């Protein structure tokens, strides 16, 4: 009986060996270059415990890979060949560096058709970074298919979330643990609607820009869409008193994209002089980075210019410690449709700003978010196809240097290629977010 089992085992192993070697070349020529793989994980720095980085050959060739653990890095050897080749290529092993810096366990983002004007399914989702598990936090199934946008968490705490749910009976949803309420900001206080939000680190205040946004489709050129504001101001909601106040009410200046410093004592935002007929004069719309001090629930002093350049329009400032990461584009306020849009890093102590070259690509980079310890940054990039935004994560050494970014790992290498949704507004989360679907559905009943 034992002999029979052993024979069967040997036969099975032999047939597996035959199957495994089927179609593989008999020899490999070693070359002194790294393989071109997709996604590009060559030389990236990853946090401990990140989901497996799976890849294919960029040119679609067959390949085998083996991984060697070197302690602070993993060396990946790749052998590739075309079907029918008698000799394949053995590439130089490439490193994937391990970082000892922790990363928040989840990232939240919105999934939306890379759209143009309307939508069908929109949802705010969370992805566990240690696995491929993606779960909905809330989708527009709960809101009668209205638009969901501009989610924000207080200090990355998933228990406190704010997002807009547009459409009939829509408004801004504030959820704190098991409590949730919906407020139509356009109906209260100064009657301004809320758009881009920023939660004060103390948790009591929320500032929103209040934008009148339009979009236009170009007749030619290499940019399909331009999105612009014809008006924008900034409002603040005091969650303790449920009051709304206007921070900036300046018809001649457009203020947008507010963001708090870590200590909550400074509000950074972008501002540009208003232009008549923005659709035609959009090339002249350049936003500067501004700041205003905040103390005891009040803004004090005059706004001051922090960064401005004639050839750069600043958007989406996000601060961690002494560093402020922003998106720089040639003009305008919606960089995702600007291929030239890149991430820039500003040292708030020295005032020096430079392009974060290692993060950038020939396509748009935008909508970035720092991890809670400031050692990682997640951002959206259109480098893969120019139209669909994908998420990339990069390490940061705390001294102004980023590591090579890596694409958020996916279960299969063609998952993002065949996904018909774009990722946007990624935000790190300190823990798993509760499911907000039923809670939101109740608000819309």
């Amino acid at each position, binding site marked *: 009986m034992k002999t029979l089992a052993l024979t069967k085992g040997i036969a099975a192993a032999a047939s597996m060996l035959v199957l495994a070697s089927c179609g593989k070349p008999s020899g490999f020529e070693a070359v002194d270059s790294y393989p071109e793989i997709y996604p590009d994980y060559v030389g990236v720095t990853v946090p401990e415990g990140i989901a497996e980085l799976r890849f294919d050959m960029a040119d679609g060739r067959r390949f085998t890979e083996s991984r060697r653990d070197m302690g602070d890095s993993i060396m990946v050897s790749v052998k590739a060949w075309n079907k029918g080749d008698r000799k394949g290529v053995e590439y130089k092993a490439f490193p994937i560096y391990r970082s000892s810096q922790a990363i928040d366990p989840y990232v939240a983002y919105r999934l939306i058709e890379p759209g143009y004007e309307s939508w*069908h*399914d929109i949802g705010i989702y969370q992805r566990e970074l240690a696995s491929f598990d993606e779960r909905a936090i809330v989708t527009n199934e709960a809101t009668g298919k209205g638009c969901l946008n501009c989610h924000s968490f207080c200090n990355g705490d998933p228990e406190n979330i704010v997002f807009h749910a547009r459409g009939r009976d829509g408004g801004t949803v504030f959820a704190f643990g098991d409590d949730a309420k919906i407020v139509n900001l356009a109906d209260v206080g100064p009657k301004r609607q809320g758009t881009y939000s920023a939660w004060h680190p103390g948790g009591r205040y929320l500032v929103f820009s209040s934008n009148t946004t339009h979009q*236009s*489709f170009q007749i030619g050129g290499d940019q399909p*869409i331009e999105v612009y504001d014809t008006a924008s101001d900034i409002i603040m909601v005091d969650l303790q008193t449920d009051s709304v106040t206007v921070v900036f009410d300046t018809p001649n200046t457009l203020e947008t994209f507010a963001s708090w410093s870590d200590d909550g004592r400074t509000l950074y935002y972008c501002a540009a002089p208003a232009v008549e007929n923005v659709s035609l004069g959009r090339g002249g719309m350049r936003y500067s980075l501004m700041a205003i001090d905040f103390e005891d629930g009040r803004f004090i002093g005059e706004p001051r210019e922090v960064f401005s350049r004639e050839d750069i329009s600043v958007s989406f400032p996000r601060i961690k410690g002494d560093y402020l990461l922003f998106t720089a584009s040639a003009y305008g306020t919606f960089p995702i449709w600007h291929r030239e849009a890149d991430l820039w890093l500003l040292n708030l102590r020295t005032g020096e700003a430079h392009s974060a070259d290692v993060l950038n690509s020939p396509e748009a980079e935008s909508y970035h978010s720092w991890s809670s310890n400031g050692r990682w940054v997640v951002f959206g990039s259109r480098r893969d196809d120019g*139209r*669909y935004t994908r998420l990339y994560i990069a390490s940061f050494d705390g001294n102004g240097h980023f590591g090579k970014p890596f694409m958020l790992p996916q279960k*299969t290498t063609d998952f993002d*290629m065949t996904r018909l949704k774009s990722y946007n507004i990624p935000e790190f989360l300190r823990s798993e977010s509760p499911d907000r679907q039923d809670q939101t559905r109740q608000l819309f009943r």
Partner: protein
Amino acid sequence: MTYALLFAAVFCVTLVFQSQTIQQHEALSLFLLTGDYFTQTFREAWPLSRIVASFISGFFRFPVVGGLLTALLITLVYLFANILFRFLGSLAKPSASVLACVAWYMFVHAGCDPLPVVKILFRLCIPVLLVAMFLPKDFLLFRKELSRGTLLLAFIAPVAVVSLATALGRTPRMNEKWATIEQAARRHDWDKILKTADVMSASKDREMIPFAMLALNAQGRMAENLNAYPVKGPEDLDMEGVRTRRGYYFSSILQECLGCNYEALHLISQSGCTLPYGTSMMVLRQTLKYNIALGDQRMIRKYIEVLKKSPANRAMAKAAEKAYLKKTATGTAPAAVSDSLAFNGNATVPVVTNNPIYNLILLASHGAESPMLVDRLNAYSAFGDTAN
């Protein structure tokens, strides 16, 4: 014999009277063998129903296959119902089975919503059981006294009559007509549009007028034929502001014909947003087409990869791959002419507005000189200047 006759009858009726409708089913459905598709589907209600229905609809792209599938499914419903009633012993009654498949046929072909096929199949159990419960016992036993020929006639005749009535009813006929027009517009088969959206049909359904006008326009005959159709004003020449699937669809074809491929992409995407999945096989194919026109290799690559995940579109996608992609697996990025903060070129490119006449003037001033554009401008000008 009964099954073979039923199969043949349904196949013929479908192919003769419903061939465009079943293609439209496919055009508006979505089935992809991707993780994202299944994940999204299982987040919706009736996921299995959607998957099975969309999978079947995928093959409706080819009318003969669609006809065969429809006939096969209806025959299977008949068989299933027969088995069910036989299983119920004394309640065995093929007449109820006939009613079951007739009801199924009517539901399936009553409209163009591609999703409820299997949902209907589930719901069908209820009327079938009701019929079984309430038909008089004498009627149930009636078949035993009939000859085989009479039986065949008794069961096939109602199917044939109801099928024909279903296929020739006003709604199915109109659906078939619209499916013909929309598909002809996609193929730029202007003669077919004019033949289908004739003056009488357009008088009954005024939404056909813009399609007919587009066909005339593409042939350079719109301005001179304004009086041939019951055109009341410039709003009949286009579907600007019509925020329905058909309205967006029409506008995307119009913009495509005028050479505004970004706007065509925008509008076909808008059209997709009105559909159950937010897109459909037709929307994906049109998107691929516009990206080919724009020469965006990476988007072409993406949509080819997506379409390859559809069993019924795989061959087409592979042919497109062979024709349009000769680069690496990730495609070739367009020259990064605008990847410079100093580049301001896009800021001066005109943008499309919601004033169709202004758009035409913009296009003309941007160098477009197509006879279609001139003909359309002439037609608008026949109603006076409304470009302000």
